[in-house]
């Protein structure tokens, strides 16, 4: 990625509600044209964050800079930014066309020019032209998404914020809209700041992802960074199924996992590492015939298998511990339940993280 100038900068941004800091001294630079996603579980402060960025809440302290200018106290209607709401907040008493034209009407654009722009946006978002006169209440979920996006694009914002707009959409449509949104990001070249609780959704679309926990970013990086190089256990577990082994460093550089009573060969050890967690993604695990086939091997029994479409997931139990193994369908052989299996992985496919 070529370095781009920051469009939005957060400097020690804090939002407190009484003694509780929903957003806690956050520093962040968002680059011009970037698709930046803020991911966090519910209660992590992500909605408060985006409402502050969009101008619907005022930070308790810190500075919010838009192209270097402090905009803390600039109300939402004076900011060149725009948000797509979780509820979409379409105006129910207006047609699709009137919804899209709303920001232009507020600016005093002539009706003919408004309509022309609305029709262009309809075609850009692949909505039929005759939707112009349709009531938004009669649109389907996916169509309403597109209308909300068209309305935001009509505003021609410098930054577009999204507050979990896809969370209420069924899986198949959501997957399609995620890609569509990324395409629109590419087409418009605008800065997108997206909020979601789904790291999977963030992965599909984002240039960079910030993982939010209790009002602070605990890791900011590319999807690849977040997936392959999580900096702590929370981030590694946020992506979904993952195998986490509590480990302690031995003098010989091996890792001792007390719950398993096994020693594992370590990936490159961070400086000063003494104890933490060894994280192995399910797809890095494989069934091995003998101990020498992989750097680390754990014996266990196959408990169950789950078909995930192109992949198959296996649950292997080793004593009280559960291991999750995922293989591509083509690579998966028939396995008997309760069969004795050995599960292994190579040290380079694992990551060491702190708490």
């Amino acid at each position: 990625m070529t370095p781009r100038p920051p469009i939005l900068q957060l400097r020690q941004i804090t939002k407190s509600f009484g003694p509780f800091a929903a957003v806690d001294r956050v520093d962040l630079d968002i680059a011009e044209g970037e698709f930046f996603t803020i991911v966090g579980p519910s209660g992590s402060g992500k909605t408060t964050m985006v409402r502050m960025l969009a101008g619907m809440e005022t930070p308790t302290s810190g500075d919010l800079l838009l192209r270097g200018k402090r905009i803390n106290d600039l109300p939402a209607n004076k900011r060149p930014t725009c948000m797509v709401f979780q509820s979409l907040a379409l105006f129910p008493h207006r047609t699709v066309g009137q919804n899209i034209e709303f920001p232009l009407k507020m600016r005093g654009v002539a009706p003919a020019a408004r309509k022309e722009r609305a029709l262009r946006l309809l075609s850009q978002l692949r909505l039929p032209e005759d939707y112009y006169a349709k009531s938004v209440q009669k649109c389907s979920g996916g169509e309403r998404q597109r209308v909300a996006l068209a309305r935001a694009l009509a505003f021609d914002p410098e930054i577009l914020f999204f507050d979990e707009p896809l969370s209420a959409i069924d899986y198949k449509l959501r997957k399609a809209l995620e890609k569509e949104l990324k395409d629109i990001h590419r087409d418009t070249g605008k800065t997108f700041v997206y909020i979601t609780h789904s790291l999977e959704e963030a992965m599909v679309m984002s240039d960079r992802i910030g993982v939010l926990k209790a009002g602070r970013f605990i890791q900011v990086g590319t999807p690849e960074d977040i997936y392959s190089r999580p900096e702590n256990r929370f981030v590694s577990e946020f992506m979904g199924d993952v195998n986490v082994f509590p480990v302690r460093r031995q003098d010989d550089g091996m890792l001792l996992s007390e719950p398993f009573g096994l020693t594992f060969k370590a990936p490159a050890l961070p400086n000063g590492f003494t104890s933490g967690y060894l994280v192995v993604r399910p797809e890095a695990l494989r069934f091995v015939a003998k101990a020498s086939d992989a750097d680390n091997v754990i014996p266990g029994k196959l408990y169950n298998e789950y078909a995930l479409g192109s992949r198959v997931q296996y649950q292997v139990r080793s004593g009280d511990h559960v291991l999750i193994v995922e293989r591509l369908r083509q690579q998966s052989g028939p396995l008997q339940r309760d069969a004795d299996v050995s599960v292994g992985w190579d040290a380079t496919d694992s990551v060491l993280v702190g708490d």
Partner: protein
Amino acid sequence: MEPTDRRGLALPQGLRFALPLILALLAGFVAPLAAVVAYSFMPPRTFGLDHSPTLANYVEIVASNSHIALYWSLTFAALTVVILAAVCYPIAYGMARVFGRWSTVIVLLFTIPLFVSENVRIYGWILFFIKNGVLLGSLKSLFGVEPDSWLFTKGIVLLGMVYVYLPFMLFPMTLGVAMVPADAREAAQDLGASRWQVFREIELPLSMPGIVIGLLLTFVLAVGAIVEAKVLGGQTIIPITHDIEIAFTYAQNWPLGAALSVLLMLIVGALVLLALRRFDLDAILGRR
């Protein structure tokens, strides 16, 4: 279980359960109304429905000066509604958005007087405004001034009507304002709308169902007002309801009273239908 009747009376289940209520309403509401309409076509000063129909009562109304009473009733009802709309919208807005839990207190303060009969409350106003009463008596003893009493003026009639019908405007309006989704307002603002634009484009149209219901309710009630004009106004104005009452009681001319009632119902009904056509509630809500 199959909702079929063994005796072959196969009424749909919904109708069977609704039937008692439908019969009660037919007997208690539709029948008296039909009787009033029927009486309006009976010869003047008769008391039975067995005479041949005539338009004499309607002719008498047109010839008489009842149109003045009708004018006062409609004018005062319209003025009441306009004043109430202006007074209640800010209060409704406050109750729905600003006052928070204090709106409960305000609702109570608006509601408690409703437990007292309207007549009693109106006589309370008399005590307040009468010469040597609460207001003028206090002014006299404290400052030695003695302005004329406002009682028995048109203004006090209007004040009384606004006072009595305020809750019927306020509560539907509050519901209407509360129906406006918070995020629609925020989205409008975020899309560059000023406060005034948010009000005009979003809040007013989306709260219109509640406002229209409040307008209609208070108008219909205010057209039927009588006590305010009688007691507070001391007959400064004669509303149509007064003529109707006189016809039925003092004058013992039921057919004339019935004809006046039918005329009033027709006029009010026409105005309400017109308003509903203009402000189609479903269309306002975008359901159509």
